[in-house]
């Protein structure tokens, strides 16, 4: 036979140009939507294995204490109990109510619950702090100054200011509230472990399980651990780790010789599976009479539980630009408390920094008697991307009717009746560069195509995006491509955090699909009588670029593969992705000044994220983020009781989230066009959740003429703010 045809030389890989995209940028429904809506999609929660046991955790009932004894004798004798696994030993110190002490497995879930209650833990109590207090009330041993930062000459900045505003702002500790709790099903087959885990980190979990199990005396290597997450019910940053309960579940399965399911109960989920740190700040901001900012001062603090949460960078967006530099001085102090530990929460630190900055600036604008829209437009030179924000601000203003509706604070309050309306806005930013991802594309001789990536779909649309890119690249309809994700048997891909997934998987898929296609083109080039470089894949055909009438159908082309499929792999491609997005959100609220109840009537999100792969799932990210934002702006708070050290609302009754009737009208506008698209793909999961708190708080201030300093904006706080102002009620 003649020599094997060579694939064409590698050029830098690119996205198809605007006019040539068939699928990319369209509104495409998610591939797994029908399976999820009809209940056919099987979440970790839904996995039931033959002979499976049910495990429950015993957790600390003390906020801080030393464990003096663990007595499992009664539990061991309870009906159905098969195995017990100690996570902590007597002598260990517990640091929050809800900290895992042991797990046990029984035949039924109810038996496991009853047995867990029969375990007796004795404690020697230690003094606790669960209240969210400023550093000066926390005691020196619970406080750590994390950062003091000065830029420019903040003292001179104060001198130059015509108007200075001082305020205090902040937001409570909240939790992730994933619809699907943390947890997994674990099953051993000889020395191999399979875990159906609800995780954001399919490719990264096996080593964690191996390490945790080795520490528990069970020798197993990462190569023996299979992790499966075909679908999952949300993570928001709280599901990167194997966690004590994951290791305990696998250890129980090992001991009992049966598969074990251990999903957290809702109370435990709220107590221990992650929270978002609180953040508070005393702020001083100054500006010239014309609105030009001259200075920022802030003293901030917050608690992320027993260890320090991230350090904020204040001010946020405005003042983050380098040219010119806004003179600033900021200091942040962490307060350590005995509440469950913080975990990354969708855009870690950003919603808090955004609230503090945007509310302080909005108050300064009010003191200057300026329309905040003009005030923010005036100060965009202090941002990293003034042009983008300008465009987005004007677009958002248009969509909410800012120019027609906005009234100065005092005027809104004079409106007739107890319900006052107001508008507020906020700006945000995020990075979102794609993570390391590897993808494998297989083209079978019968024409079927598989795309495999060890990634996961948190509900964001990852599976759909991968399918779109592969189908676009191979000139096929979306249905012709089978997307395989959610297993660590597929090529490794990064954890889904930091809005890095879409950039990673879209570019690795583009790369792998291009490589596979090039192999196919090389194979069929002789049959079409042109060099492979002159061929393209379009609309289900392989055709000559200049003469599409010379073509093979996809099936005919693939048939030329004989019996050997083509496989090609690809990696994240820097040329296809970028980082750094901007967004603007505006809110319109109605506040009943006699009851303090706030309703969001309308919200507008204007967002860029480079080249959009699927407009529909991108918009959905923004809708979902605004809903999440309304929840934390108005309702959410992990309420801790200093007396008992307990969380008082580890349930979905008093840990409040919005229902459909509480959401109002939501409008999303994604920035598109050459200026955005030429940047390549950028992540979107996090940015739109950053601004809602600030935009809603600013709208409330506009409606009632006074700032409600802290989120959530509950009736008691709204009424207290009104009363302090001496008005309205």
């Amino acid at each position, binding site marked *: 036979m003649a020599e094997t045809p060579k694939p064409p030389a590698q050029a830098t890989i690119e996205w198809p140009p605007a006019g040539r995209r068939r699928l990319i940028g369209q509104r495409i429904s998610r591939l797994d939507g029908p399976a999820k809506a009809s209940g056919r999609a099987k979440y970790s929660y839904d996995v039931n294995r033959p002979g499976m046991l049910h495990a429950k955790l015993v957790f600390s009932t003390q906020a801080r204490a030393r464990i003096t004894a663990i007595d499992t004798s009664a539990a061991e004798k309870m009906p159905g109990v098969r195995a017990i696994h100690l996570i902590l030993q007597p002598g260990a110190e517990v640091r929050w109510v809800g900290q895992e002490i042991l797990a046990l497995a029984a035949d039924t879930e109810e038996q496991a*619950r009853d047995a867990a209650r029969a375990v007796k833990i004795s404690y020697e109590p230690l003094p606790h702090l669960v209240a969210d207090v400023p550093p000066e009330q926390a005691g020196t041993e619970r406080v750590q100054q994390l950062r003091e930062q000065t830029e420019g000459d903040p003292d001179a900045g104060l001198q130059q200011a015509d108007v200075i505003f001082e305020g205090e702002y902040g937001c409570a500790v909240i939790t992730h509230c994933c619809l699907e709790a943390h947890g997994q099903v674990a099953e051993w087959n000889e020395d191999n472990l399979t875990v159906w885990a609800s995780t954001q980190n399919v490719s990264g979990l096996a080593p964690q399980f191996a390490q945790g199990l080795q520490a528990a005396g069970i020798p197993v290597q990462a190569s023996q651990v299979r992790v499966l997450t075909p679908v999952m019910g949300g993570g928001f940053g709280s599901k990167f780790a194997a966690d004590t309960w994951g290791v305990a579940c696998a250890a129980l399965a090992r001991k009992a010789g049966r598969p074990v399911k251990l999903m957290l109960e809702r109370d435990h989920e709220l107590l221990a599976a992650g929270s978002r740190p609180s953040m508070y700040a005393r702020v001083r901001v100054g500006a010239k009479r014309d609105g030009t900012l001259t200075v920022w001062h802030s003293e901030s603090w917050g608690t992320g539980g027993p260890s320090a949460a991230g350090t904020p960078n204040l001010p946020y967006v405005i003042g983050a630009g380098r040219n010119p530099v806004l003179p600033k001085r900021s200091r942040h102090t962490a307060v350590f408390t005995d509440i469950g530990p913080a975990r990354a929460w969708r855009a870690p630190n950003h919603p808090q920094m955004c609230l503090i900055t945007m509310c302080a600036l909005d108050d300064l604008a009010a003191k200057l008697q300026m329309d905040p829209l003009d005030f923010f437009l005036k100060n965009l030179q202090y941002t990293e991307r003034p042009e983008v924000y300008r465009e987005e601000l004007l677009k958002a203003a248009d969509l909410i009717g800012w120019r027609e509706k906005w009234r100065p604070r005092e005027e809104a309050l004079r409106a007739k009746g107890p319900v006052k309306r107001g508008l507020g806005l906020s700006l945000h930013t995020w990075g979102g560069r794609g993570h390391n991802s590897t993808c494998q594309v297989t083209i079978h001789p019968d024409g079927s195509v598989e795309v495999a990536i060890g990634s996961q779909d948190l509900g964001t649309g990852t599976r759909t995006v991968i399918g779109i890119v592969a189908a676009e690249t191979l000139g096929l309809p979306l249905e012709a491509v089978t997307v395989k994700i959610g297993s660590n048997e597929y090529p490794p891909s990064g954890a889904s955090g930091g809005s890095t997934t879409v950039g990673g998987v879209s570019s690795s898929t583009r790369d792998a699909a291009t490589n596979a296609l090039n192999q196919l083109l090389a194979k069929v080039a002789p049959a079409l009588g042109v060099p492979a470089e002159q061929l393209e894949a379009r609309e289900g055909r392989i055709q000559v670029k200049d003469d599409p009438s010379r073509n093979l159908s996809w099936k005919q082309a693939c048939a030329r593969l004989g019996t050997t499929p083509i496989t090609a792999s690809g990696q994240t491609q820097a040329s296809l992705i970028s980082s750094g997005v901007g967004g603007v959100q505006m809110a319109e609220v109605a506040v009943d000044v006699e*009851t303090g109840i706030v309703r969001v009537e309308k919200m507008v999100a204007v967002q860029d994220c480079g080249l959009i792969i699927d407009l529909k799932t991108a918009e959905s990210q923004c809708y979902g983020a605004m809903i999440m934002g309304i929840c934390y702006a108005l309702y959410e708070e992990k309420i801790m*009781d200093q007396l008992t050290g307990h969380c008082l609302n580890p349930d979905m009754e008093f840990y409040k989230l919005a229902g459909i009737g509480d959401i109002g009208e939501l409008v999303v506008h994604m920035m598109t066009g050459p200026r955005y698209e030429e940047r390549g793909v950028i992540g979107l999961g996090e940015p739109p959740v950053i601004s809602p708190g600030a935009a809603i708080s600013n709208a409330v201030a506009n409606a009632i003429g006074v700032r409600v300093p802290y989120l959530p904006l509950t009736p*008691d706080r709204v009424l207290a703010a009104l009363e302090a102002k001496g008005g309205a009620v």
Partner: protein
Amino acid sequence: MQAFEYAEPKTLKEALGLLSSRWGETEILAGGTDLLSLMKNYVATPRRVVNLKSIAELRGVAETSEGLRIGALTTVQELLEDRRLARFPALTAAAQGITSPQIRNMGTIGGDLCQRPRCWYFRNGFGLLARDAQGRALVPEGDNRYHAILGNDGPAYFVSASSFGPPLIALGARVRIAGPNGTREMPLSEFFVIPKNEGEREIALHPNEILTDVFLPAAASELRNATYEVRQREFLDWPLATASVALELREGTVRRASIVLGHVAPIPWQAGAAAALLDGKALTEDLADQAGEQAVAAAKPLSKNRYKVQLARVAVKRALLAAAQGGA
């Protein structure tokens, strides 16, 4: 949930025979929307659960010479759909406030009146009177943002959870109770009590009794009634304060007014002085406002619930104005 014996009697008599004379040993199951969560959280750990749902005589709404008889098993949804209740918007507004279709379909009027308080110390295992192991009362020093502002001299600080209690009391409802020695009747206003000791309940029922019927007196043509509920969310949420009012409007003046506050005291709170203020007067916005002020005059807010005083006051005002403007 602790394992239990399950009984499904077909008659009231049979059911009564299955109930213990000590609280906690047996529990009555109606819709289960409250009892099941109490049991899952081990706040209730009965030996036996007696399901009432197969007892036909506890069902249905019927017209009688004195008014309406509402069987204890009548669901929230059935109340909403019953046209005979359209004359009592004070009651239907409270039913509408329970915005979950699942709870409307399962929850019963008897269960609503007998449901346990939602006090988070109680629900988290610190007892109805919320004390820690040292006997310290937790509510006054703890987080009491949702607790009582009236009738809160202690040791009870929780609020009555029933949204049907206030409108039914305002409308003059009575209840019938069946026990081992026959039946007894009382005004609903006497059904709710403030417990003095741990182990006592917040209703005047004995452990071996069953609430069988609610009697709602026939509405005079001059009757006006309404309920105003302050709820933070549209989504299923407990009211922060409610007011139910019933009054007769004769030639523009108020007679026989009754005002009952909900979710502000361990029992539905009758604001007698506020109601008396209205007698013989025209119901203006000013008067409604005064009545609101009077209704909370005796309030003694705890450390974190002063805002509820304002909410209760506004609820009274708005309920009165709604009643005046139509309200049946």
